């Protein structure tokens, strides 16, 4: 999606985990961040491609960037205001 890598406050690697674990763990991690901080999330679950944008939308966070690296997806999620 973008070539510029956003600033990262925390990284979470969910490689090898399937739904619902990437969303569950990302939700926990985002819960510990302040609004405006960015979580870098690494996923290998093929479902994450759609799940993570949906999660950001539902939670009120912003998916600032995403990148596919082979079978791995990397997402940068900025925590929303709520």
């Amino acid at each position, binding site marked *: 999606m973008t070539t510029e890598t956003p600033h990262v406050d925390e990284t979470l690697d969910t490689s090898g985990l399937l739904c*619902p*674990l990437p969303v569950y763990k*990302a939700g926990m991690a985002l819960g510990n961040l302040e609004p405006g901080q960015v979580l870098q999330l690494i996923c290998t679950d093929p479902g994450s491609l759609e799940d993570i944008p949906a999660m950001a939308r539902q939670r*009120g966070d912003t998916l600032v960037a995403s990148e596919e690296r082979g079978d791995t997806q990397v997402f940068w999620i900025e925590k929303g205001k709520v």
Partner: protein
Amino acid sequence: MTATPQNGAESAKETTRPKRLALVASKGTLDQAYPPLILATTAASLGWDVGIYFTFYGLDILHQDRFEKLKVASLANPAGPIRVPNLLGAVPGATAAATKVMKNWMKKSRMPELPEFIEMAQGLGVTFFACATTMGVMGVEETDLIEGCDIAGAAAFLDFAADADVQLYV
């Protein structure tokens, strides 16, 4: 009769309340216990308000002596983990074998076991409604259930479900 000047305030409140998921879990087999818990933990992770109504065989998921021993049916389950002619599903040990295969699948996929899912859901604040009628019919006492369940009848659950954005029966 009074005017309704608070209507505006009420609708503002409506738009800021979290979305709500109301699930009915009616099955007591291992494979059927996962979907409601997966949906519940996911929805709660999205910031939704979630409640599951455990009714009939689904109540076994909350039963202290049973929730760790749920099984996969080998009979009348053509999509089950062991694909054998239906008749062989009645052979002694077939249910245990099907259960073992599913548990191995889950372990290999690094999926949490059921007790861990229950803990995850409770940790996220998912409400567990235990069906009061099922308890009466099946002779289940409150002390038989895991901690933190709300014993509720259909009306109490429907009162919760009436404000839900998504309602599903599993």
